[in-house]
């Protein structure tokens, strides 16, 4: 009997050791520098609040950590969309002024491989900037670094809260360099194929309710030949 108990305790210990090794392996899920951080092209920078209650609308299956907002919004409870969330956000320019509207729809991805440090979410953005035009952004996001640096420490905290300063790129593809694909659809973006990176800055996160203080950023690289043709809005466009 004592050997069986030793074996079971050993198995549990082994599982815990392996899980800890995966979670804290510094070589897995490590984020590199965003290729757009060193681009020579013009970029459009848009920011948004990362707190769901700051959204115009946020909805999911209603049973996830982050509650839908407003409270009476229709929830995505059907089997096909249970792992999906949708939100409408106000996008701001570099000066903090309202620049447009962003709609983000995200779904957990079957490409998720915890063994390899991949907590993947497939997401799309529709961004409309009045007076300038609209665009569609397609990306895969990897939340592995977010999970191990914010979510795990929050669960280990006696107050179930994480506080600090974490800045990370969420975009991990589908571009070869870890960038999102952007298709311009109207206005000055019409017909343009661009690249983008979404990043998140988190200052406080709790296990019940998710982000308390967070801000997201969309960095969109305009194609080199768009520099001369597009009218430049100084508040939105930063020349790197």
């Amino acid at each position, binding site marked *: 009997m*004592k*050997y069986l108990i*030793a*074996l079971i*305790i*050993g*198995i*549990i*210990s*082994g*599982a*815990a*050791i*392996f*899980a800890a090794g*995966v979670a804290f392996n510094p070589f897995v899920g490590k984020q590199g520098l965003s290729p757009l951080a060193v681009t020579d092209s013009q970029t459009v920078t848009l920011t948004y609040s990362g707190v769901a209650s700051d959204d*115009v*609308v946020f*909805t999911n299956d209603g049973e996830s950590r982050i509650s839908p907002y*407003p409270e*009476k*919004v*229709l929830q*995505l409870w*059907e*089997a*096909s*969309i*249970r*792992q*999906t969330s*949708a939100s*409408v956000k106000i996008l701001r320019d570099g000066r903090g*002024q*309202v620049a*447009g*509207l962003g*709609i983000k*729809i995200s*779904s*957990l*991805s*079957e490409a*998720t491989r*915890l*063994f390899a440090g991949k907590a993947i979410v*497939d997401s*799309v953005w*529709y961004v*409309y900037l*009045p007076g300038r035009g*609209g665009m*569609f952004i*397609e990306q895969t996001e990897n939340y592995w670094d977010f999970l191990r640096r914010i979510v795990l420490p929050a669960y280990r905290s006696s107050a179930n809260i994480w506080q600090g300063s974490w800045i990370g790129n969420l975009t991990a593809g*589908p571009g070869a360099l870890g960038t999102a*694909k952007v*298709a311009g*659809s*109207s*206005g000055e973006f019409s017909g343009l194929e661009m690249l983008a990176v979404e990043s998140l800055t988190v200052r406080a996160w709790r296990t019940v309710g998710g982000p308390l203080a967070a801000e997201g950023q969309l960095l969109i690289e305009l194609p080199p030949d768009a520099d001369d043709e597009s009218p430049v809005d100084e508040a939105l466009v930063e020349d790197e």
Partner: protein
Amino acid sequence: MARELSSGGNVLLKTFLVGILLGIAATAGALYSLPAVDQHREVSLVTVAPNGGNQESFHINIPMDRIMVGTAGQKAGLPAGLDWPQDDVLAGVSAELFKIRNARDVVIGVAARTVAKEEASDVIDWVLHIPARGTLFVNMAPDAQEGGHRIGRLRTGSNEFALLKGFVVERWVADTSGEEDAPAGRIELLATYVGTAEPFE
């Protein structure tokens, strides 16, 4: 006696160590082979169009599939408690969120329709997101055709739809069944896909 105890302790320790190795192997195997995410899939109901390409029909039952209706100046938005931004910049932009259904009336995804009033012409765009398959992005023509329907171009797509081109026809179909719990009508989206050839490697 001491030797027997020591021998028993060694076996116990070895059993514990074997357990650790088994635990590591079992966890590694489980993480490697078991899917962490498994999206529910409905059968794709695609038909071959008589003049080439494939067709797929989506629809939205109104009002039950409407998640959000937001537009500047509206008195009562949907959902209740919606605080649509009143900033002047967004005065000409309205957006709607829906659940979308396949031809069997099963919810398969989430869609967004935006309308932006610009000086030159209105901009009307659809995003159709089907979690297990991908996303369609459609630019609609600003003007409706005769009969009230509107035609849009499939601008781009992701995953399953990434290599497809084609167009989407949007039309409103009022309900005529007269049933008590029937929707007021439905927005029909008929997508026609035309594939693009992939080069041989």
